[in-house]
């Protein structure tokens, strides 16, 4: 029995029907074990995600290192790929080139096109068309990669042949456009074009989101000063949306770097003895397509390790690109609030 400052309270003496002390409460809905359990489960899931990404990096590193130590060639600068045998020689230079050049071509097309489509949806489309247009562009992202690749190879590719013939014929003296004797549908250039349409939806989606957030006073202010619609977009919408466009482009780049099936189906592989060429009308293999194409060959740890090393480089590349995208968009959030 406690003695309170305010004196003796009647409740202190009341007998409790269930044998609980007078100040204990009924422990019904306010008890906290449920909170601890649920909060713990939520936190554990968060921890799981952190662990997962760490494990991805860790496993790839651990399994790549032994092969890398056995490697007789320079991993970063060699263009050879002979991962098995007593003296394995493999390097990523050729893979890196094909991956980067296809992604760059994709970006050159997809960024302007994606931003223009986003502007169309947010500023130009009549109101009845705006929502369906957004859905149509999103559906483009739902087309499976393998279908994109097969369609590109068997149907769309032939229409690129005249373009390649023209460019190679007119600018062929530049090594970049040199004709390498490959059919247009299986060159780096055409793979880049297909990639452009595959990453277009993500660039459009993110640009659209920021263009929608442009404060109306900015836009009305520009119009009130006599700007035409295009001038309003150039002076009010685009500067405000720039970080969103950059981060959308970065996310798109991340997708393009890791895109597998479409690129694997389209690109002709090169003869190992073929001379090095900077031409975009050449065949080749990207990190992802090389790994997928040789999935049946993972028979020895040495060989598997070489492909995992290539996968590790791809992981690091996309990690960097995605981190940049995130930093850019988060910085904007900090300013706009």
């Amino acid at each position, binding site marked *: 029995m406690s003695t309170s400052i305010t004196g003796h309270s009647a409740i202190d003496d009341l007998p409790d029907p269930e044998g609980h002390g007078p100040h204990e409460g009924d422990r019904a*809905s306010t008890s906290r074990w*449920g*909170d601890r359990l649920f909060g713990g489960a*939520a*936190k*554990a*899931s*968060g921890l799981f*995600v*952190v662990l*997962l*990404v760490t494990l*991805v990096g860790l*496993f*790839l590193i*651990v*399994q790549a290192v032994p092969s890398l130590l056995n490697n007789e060639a320079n991993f970063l600068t060699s263009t050879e790929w002979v991962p098995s045998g007593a003296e394995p020689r493999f390097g990523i230079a050729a893979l890196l080139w094909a991956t980067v050049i296809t992604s760059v071509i994709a970006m050159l097309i997809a960024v302007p*096109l994606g931003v*223009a489509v986003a502007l*169309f949806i947010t*500023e*130009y*489309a009549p109101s009845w068309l705006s929502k369906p*247009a957004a859905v*149509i*562009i999103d559906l*483009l992202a*739902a*087309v*499976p*990669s*393998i*279908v*994109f690749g*097969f*369609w590109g190879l068997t149907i*769309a590719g032939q229409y690129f042949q005249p373009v390649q013939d023209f460019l190679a014929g007119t600018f062929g003296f530049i090594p970049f456009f040199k004709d390498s004797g490959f059919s247009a549908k299986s060159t780096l250039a055409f793979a880049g074009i297909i990639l452009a*349409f595959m990453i277009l939806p993500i660039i459009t989606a993110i640009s659209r989101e920021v263009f929608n957030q442009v404060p109306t006073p900015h836009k009305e202010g520009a*119009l*009130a000063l*006599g700007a*035409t*619609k*295009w001038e309003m977009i150039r002076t009010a919408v685009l500067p405000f949306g720039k970080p969103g466009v950059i981060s959308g482009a970065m996310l798109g780049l991340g*997708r393009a*770097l*890791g895109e*597998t*099936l479409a690129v694997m189906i389209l690109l002709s592989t090169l003869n190992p003895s073929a001379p090095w060429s900077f031409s975009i009308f050449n065949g080749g293999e990207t990190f*992802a397509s090389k790994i*997928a194409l040789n999935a049946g060959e*993972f028979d020895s740890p040495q060989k*598997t390790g070489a492909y995992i090393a290539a*996968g590790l480089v*791809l*992981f690091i590349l*996309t990690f960097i*690109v995605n*981190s940049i995208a*995130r930093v850019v968009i988060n910085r904007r959030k900090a300013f706009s609030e």
Partner: protein
Amino acid sequence: MSTVTHVGEESTRAKAVTLPDMGGKSSGRAIKDQAARIVMWSAFVIACVPLVWILVSTLLKGGHMLASVDWWTLSQNGITARREGGGAAHAIQGTLIQGAVTALMSVPIGVLTAIYLVEYGRGRFAKAVSFMVDILTGVPSIVAALFIYALWVTTFGFQRVPFAVTLALVLLMIPTIVRSTEEMLKLVPNELREASYALGVPKWKTIVSIVLPTAFSGIVTGVLLGLARVMGETAPLIILGPYTKSMASNLFDGLMGTLPTMINQDRTEALQPAVDRVWGAALTLILIVFVLNLLGRFLGRFSKVS
């Protein structure tokens, strides 16, 4: 535009003031404005071309395959590339089973992570989780597949079984679910939570019986969109789930055919029956993915928040 002409008229009426030419409809500025309008419209049309083109060509080349009952009921067991007949039931079944199991594993983890980020997460750890979800979003499917290969086959010494494929797909599905659920939970008004707390309802019960039901249809939308994404993934299947022509439903033993691997199997064949099957499988896959996608968007309309 109208403002510009207006200013022009004003200046001609008040003749005393000579303003610089603000530009009528024919000026360079108006032409630029028109050009921009045309560019935006044509950009949209260009962006629509591949989608329409792919849909039309798969419909034309694969449509007749889907019209037969056999396509939905038979497998490719015992059928060579040279022969017509058989169906894609084994592949459809495989794709649906793997998708369902993937969703079953990813949804609890994804939704709980989103709950952590929105309802509990403060400070450094929450930031780390959020950042890692972003990184996971960007992990290429081939890298996810390689990781599971390194874990499942090289480290544990297991066989390549369909379950390993679903593990790789879980990796790809979790971030989409976390992000969409997070968006939906953020939209639930804080007043609802406060009212619940004021009635003495503990936090976990508030989340389970107030927050989640309010955001429910939005979460389902996210799950369906995520499912649509992983069902079309092919890279993990190529690394971890070799194709088979017969019916299979065991995730832990043997092989399981799926629509993407069915396409991949027959795509190098030049023989007409095989080509038909590729287009048929492509159309079936697109149909499944689009139906999930549109169903998700449709359900999103019934959302109580947003």
